[in-house]
């Protein structure tokens, strides 16, 4: 009986997580098309549903009906495993994100480390896709992706150390509860900016979308993927956007804290505001060159993050 209950609970949670991820990705694609359209003085999708709301549902269903093309020259194991590996961390990270005081599936005391451990797997799937495709464009995209994520992982990790020093815990709920009165973005504004820029690079969003720069290297690491395998990469990319924005909300913007509205509403409002910022940046800045990208990462963000850490240490000691 107990066993059955546990199984039922796990099944329910899995259904919630997978349902939310799917709906979130479909909504974000629609939102991105609408935001880009408004910025470029167009209308965007208008035909399917109210203001094209169901356009992305139609697109998703269409993707299921598309032929899976598996080229002959591929390296089979990495090529076939890469889309699955791309899905893997994004779904697992969802388990620990608290969207309300009691609305989480797992409450780990090493939540922050857990999230970074799994999100680091994303670059592995990019490299496997690029290497396995055995195509020069894919390989170039993969190598760019690896170099980029190596450069931006460190400022990302260093920037949140200040927050952890202030509240003295790695538990995501504990971090949010420490921000009852003041959001950490006020204590750590520099860290927030570094974190935000690094997450743009980590999720391969413009202006850091070099691994899939479509005007230079076709589609980068997923050139050879079609149909549902391509959809898996897409799904994981948009879920990753949600995850990093949720993390920024938890670490810097006070998580679910806010007046009047219920907790999950506040949380989702903050997350979608950050995602809107990411889209806004995408359609405002042109893509930067690889040398500019590396310079920004190694020569500006890492020293700045270290300075931020030093200042936080001194202030906490006084």
């Amino acid at each position: 009986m107990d066993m059955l209950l546990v199984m039922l609970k796990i099944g329910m949670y899995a259904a919630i997580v997978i349902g939310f991820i799917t709906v979130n990705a479909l909504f974000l694609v629609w939102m991105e098309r609408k935001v880009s359209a408004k910025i470029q003085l167009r209308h965007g999708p208008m035909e399917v549903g109210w203001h094209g709301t169901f356009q992305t549902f139609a697109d998703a269903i269409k993707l299921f009906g598309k032929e899976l093309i598996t080229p002959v020259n591929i390296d089979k194991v990495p090529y076939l495993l890469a889309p699955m590996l791309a899905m893997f961390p994004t779904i697992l990270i969802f388990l620990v994100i608290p969207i309300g005081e009691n609305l989480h599936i797992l409450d780990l005391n090493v939540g922050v480390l857990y999230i970074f451990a799994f999100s680091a797997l994303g670059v592995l799937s990019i490299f496997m896709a690029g290497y396995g495709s055995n195509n020069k464009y894919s390989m170039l995209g993969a190598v760019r992706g690896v170099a980029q994520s190596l450069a931006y992982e460190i400022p990302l990790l260093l920037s949140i150390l200040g927050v952890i020093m202030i509240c003295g815990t790695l538990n995501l709920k504990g971090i949010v509860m420490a921000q009852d009165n003041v959001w950490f973005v006020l204590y750590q504004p520099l860290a927030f900016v570094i974190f935000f820029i690094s997450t743009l690079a980590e999720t391969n969003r413009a202006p850091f979308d070099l691994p899939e720069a479509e005007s230079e290297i076709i589609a980068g690491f997923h050139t050879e993927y079609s149909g549902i395998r391509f959809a898996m990469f897409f799904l994981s990319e948009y879920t990753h956007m949600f995850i990093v924005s949720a993390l920024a909300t938890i670490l810097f913007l006070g998580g679910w804290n806010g007046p009047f509205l219920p907790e999950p509403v506040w949380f989702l409002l903050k997350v979608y505001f950050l995602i809107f910022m990411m889209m806004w940046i995408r359609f405002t800045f042109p893509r930067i060159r690889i040398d500019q990208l590396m310079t920004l990462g190694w020569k500006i963000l890492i020293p700045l993050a270290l300075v931020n850490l030093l200042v936080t240490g001194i202030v906490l000691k006084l």
Partner: protein
Amino acid sequence: MGDFTPLFIYGGLVLFVTCVMLVMTGLFAPFRTSEVKFQTYESGVQAETALFQKRFPLKHYLVALLFLVFDIEVVFLYPWAVVAKEIGSFAFFEMAFFMVALLVGFAYVWRKGGLTWD
């Protein structure tokens, strides 16, 4: 284990879901073979049939090495950051010493042009 058992269960579920997606597309999608379609994509010209084994500049190797150094440093910093407030000034000076030792190396690499991408 304890805390982490659910991870294995959900990991299995992810695998299951991706497999279901692949099976569904197998049911709905057409499959027509043609020799040209399965060639490596190459903007309309004949693709190289040999494996893609071009070499890459040493820069990537250097960046990876530097990343390793800094990543280990971050691994040290995380547990330190959790308890830094409790231990106080001793923790601060201890870590400052460690960081200075590391930053000397960083400055050396910077000076030698290891971070310049050209």
